[in-house]
């Protein structure tokens, strides 16, 4: 018996033949799952995951947002995400670096 797969393609694409990049969901392809979302000033955010997770950060300035990853001083270890001033962060369950 073959294996079972759940797939949803994006609008306009054939789910049976399209490339992986044109899928919305596939049980064979992992997706980012939010662990912690927050915002704050310079300092550390304890994430409690015991491994180094994937993360996005974006800075705010003048009422606007920056592109993800533009702050060279942001870092993450197995305990804390370290951020700069006026930063929004998304910490994901993906990780293991």
């Amino acid at each position, binding site marked *: 018996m073959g294996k079972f797969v759940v797939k949803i393609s994006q609008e306009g694409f054939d789910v049976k033949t399209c490339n992986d990049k044109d899928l919305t969901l596939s049980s064979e392809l992992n997706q980012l799952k939010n662990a912690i979302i927050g915002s704050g000033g310079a300092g550390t955010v304890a994430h409690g995951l015991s491994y180094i997770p994937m993360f*996005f950060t974006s800075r705010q*300035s003048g009422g606007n947002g920056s*592109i993800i990853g533009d*702050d060279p001083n942001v870092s993450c270890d197995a305990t804390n995400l370290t951020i700069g001033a006026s930063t929004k962060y998304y910490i994901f369950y993906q990780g293991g670096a």
Partner: protein
Amino acid sequence: MPFVFKLSLPGKNVSSSNPQDFVFNSRLGSVKIVQQPPNKTAQSVTVGASTTETVTIAHNLGFIPLVMVFAEKSPGTGKFYNGYAIHGGSEVGDVTLLPIGGGTYVDANNLVLVFQNNTASQKIVQYYYYIFGDSAT
């Protein structure tokens, strides 16, 4: 009684309590891509020698979204960088994407990219972006 929709990763039990064991779990939020370039194809902008060029991408989400941008630092190489690296990073390229405060920003309606040509000749810069349906504030 709440209903939950879960898909476990291959080899993992869908009854697992470890969030890492799931492709999808309706109890866990996920960032969502709402906009990419047309036809999911890298876009190009021509930047004159020693000048800047502004690209405005309308998203009209009504809130400031997370955005990710990839661009060539050395046009024509096909090597794309993102984040701090395309703002200059530790090695300024032929082209720089100016940082927030210097021109590039995202607001509730548009993603505005300002490319600076650091050379004495015109450059055609390729770039790609993801706009997420998730707040950056």
